[in-house]
């Protein structure tokens, strides 16, 4: 039964998940866990915590699949990614509290690759926003800048991100 499901379309997979089909849940995991784990490892450098994030994301996805259509997302991956990042940021702890052995952050991840090409001011804002999950208000306070300016910097970074994605993965 599982073998039949391995290549089903995203649409079919969502329908099966909504019915609570355990085989569909397995397919969802097998399809997306790897890509999501890669993202989590860039955000949460501790293995145990990164693992917990993956378990939580899928438990959430299985329960809330019916909310997918009203989420505004068009693809399952983006929908899962949003939740993954949200949970990963909650799990991440300040890097100063880590010892060297726990660090397993991947330095050559796509977001790091992108991050390096940014001008210093954009790097800082993007890092605080994406990797730390801080709001514009908090970043503005931290950097002693007006919110409008932070918004503008992040806007520039996002423009560059769009270009970066279009160049490499179009």
């Amino acid at each position, binding site marked *: 039964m599982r073998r039949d499901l391995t290549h089903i379309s995203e649409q079919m997979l969502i329908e099966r998940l909504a019915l609570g089909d355990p085989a569909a849940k397995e397919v969802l995991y097998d399809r997306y*866990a790897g890509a999501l784990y890669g993202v989590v490892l860039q955000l949460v450098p501790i293995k145990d915590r990164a693992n917990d994030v993956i378990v939580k994301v899928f438990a959430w996805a299985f329960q809330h699949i019916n909310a997918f259509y009203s989420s505004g997302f068009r693809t399952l991956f983006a929908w899962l990614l949003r939740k993954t990042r949200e949970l990963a940021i909650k799990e991440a702890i300040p890097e100063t509290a880590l010892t060297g052995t726990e660090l397993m952050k991947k330095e050559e991840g796509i977001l790091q690759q992108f991050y390096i090409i940014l001008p210093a001011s954009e790097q800082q804002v993007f890092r605080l926003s994406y990797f730390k999950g801080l709001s514009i208000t908090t970043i503005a306070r931290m950097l002693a800048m007006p919110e409008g300016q932070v918004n503008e910097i*992040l806007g520039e970074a*996002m423009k560059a991100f769009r270009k970066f994605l279009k160049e*490499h993965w179009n």
Partner: protein
Amino acid sequence: MELKFYIESGIIESYVLGLASETEVEELEHMRKLFPELDTEVELAERRLERACFDEAVLPPMEIRERVLQKVRWEYAGAQADAQSNYTFINIQPKDGSYISVHRWWKIFFIILFILSKIFLFFAILYYLKYRQEKERQEQHPAAITFIHEQKANIFYI
């Protein structure tokens, strides 16, 4: 033209990554209602990010798969049991294919079958013996006739 500018601002990417503020998200949702073609743009942006992340995929440890799916299997088993009755059915039989479970009526069926087979066997032996007895009795009369025939044959040869 303005729509193109809006798309190129990277607002969709910001939304997909989860960096957009609430006002920006509301604005985008409003724009999507006004311009349904934006949906295609959102999908394109999501697909690009998906491809990028798939290139970076790292297989989680096997134990994570077990943790995620064990819960699923348990919940599923629980739901199945609930649908049938209000108790949980725990199957402790080894599932290696060398055991089967059947209805209790089969036991009675096999006992009856066994008894019937004994009765039939008894009658089979009984009638066989009767048949042999009958045959032996018949062979005594034809034996005399054969004797006469043989004598006739002997005369013929002489």
